[in-house]
């Protein structure tokens, strides 16, 4: 792939829209677990990769919004739209679509839909990702999340070593009490397990992770 293609892929990754390490599509026959916890929202995604391009899974989402709190149970299909493998980097663009149900604290239970587009670029010491995600259930319940991340690794870790990253996460979530959150965090991974811990500038803790097996 030419250098201009690489630059285009990186720009697309930055501006299109969660992470190579937490990509919903992993390796053929691989299972993935991705939990994330914040004060007023929680995600748990379980995926099985049918191939290196497609995965299916189930997800649970909890959102404590301005008017009510909602819990979503979603069956999900994920497709790797594009992947650019370079000697020193990789770039991924993934699309997810799902459907299921919603349980709400103030409204009747209803059907719900989920869609997300995410892109990431990762090299040995640099990392970025963008995500756009929507959870919709009728006209009244509509949660959207837009995320951008940049990170760097202070050292080159080998395959069997603990990998350490410093990441800055920017989240904008509609219908939430604090829609904009900027969260510096540490991201650690060892073998097939990743762990993230951060605190937003408003003092809201964030805990996330992923495991492939």
């Amino acid at each position: 792939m030419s250098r201009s293609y690489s630059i285009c892929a990186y720009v697309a990754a930055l501006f299109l829209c969660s992470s190579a390490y937490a990509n919903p599509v992993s390796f053929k026959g691989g299972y993935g677990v991705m939990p994330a916890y914040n004060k007023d929202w929680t995600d748990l995604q379980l995926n099985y990769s049918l191939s290196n391009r497609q995965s299916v899974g189930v997800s649970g989402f909890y959102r404590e919004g301005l008017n009510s709190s909602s819990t979503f149970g979603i069956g999900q299909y994920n497709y790797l739209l594009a992947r650019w493998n370079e000697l020193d980097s990789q770039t991924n663009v993934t699309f997810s679509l799902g459907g299921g149900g919603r349980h709400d604290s103030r409204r009747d239970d209803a059907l719900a839909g989920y869609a997300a587009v995410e892109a990431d670029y990762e090299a040995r010491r640099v990392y970025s990702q963008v995500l756009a995600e929507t959870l919709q259930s009728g006209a009244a319940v509509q949660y959207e999340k837009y995320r951008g991340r940049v990170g760097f690794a202070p050292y080159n870790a080998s395959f069997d070593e603990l990998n350490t990253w410093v990441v800055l996460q920017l989240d904008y979530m509609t219908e939430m009490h604090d829609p904009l959150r900027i969260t510096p965090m540490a991201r650690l991974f060892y073998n097939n397990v990743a762990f993230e811990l951060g605190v937003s500038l408003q003092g809201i803790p964030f805990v996330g992770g992923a495991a492939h097996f």
Partner: protein
Amino acid sequence: MKWLIAAFSVFAMVVAPVVAHAEEISVSVKGMVCSFCAQGIKKTFSAQKEVEKVAVDLDKKIVSITTKQGESVPDERITQAITDAGFEVVEIKRQK
């Protein structure tokens, strides 16, 4: 003559397992920049019965496969396994 053939057969049976070397396969891979993402490569090759050992070098972008004695893994299977893990093979080198 019969004695000679019998002696040669016994010699072949004793010596053959000793000369059946393990193979060292070195695979250059594109996109392998993160240990978490490359776990699938190790898992896939470790599950193959011919494979004794798998090592991933992220700096050199090399997957090193050591087969069991007398065993081999064809190029097609290596390429397929790397592709299934989401990566791209650049070159496969073999050494006995």
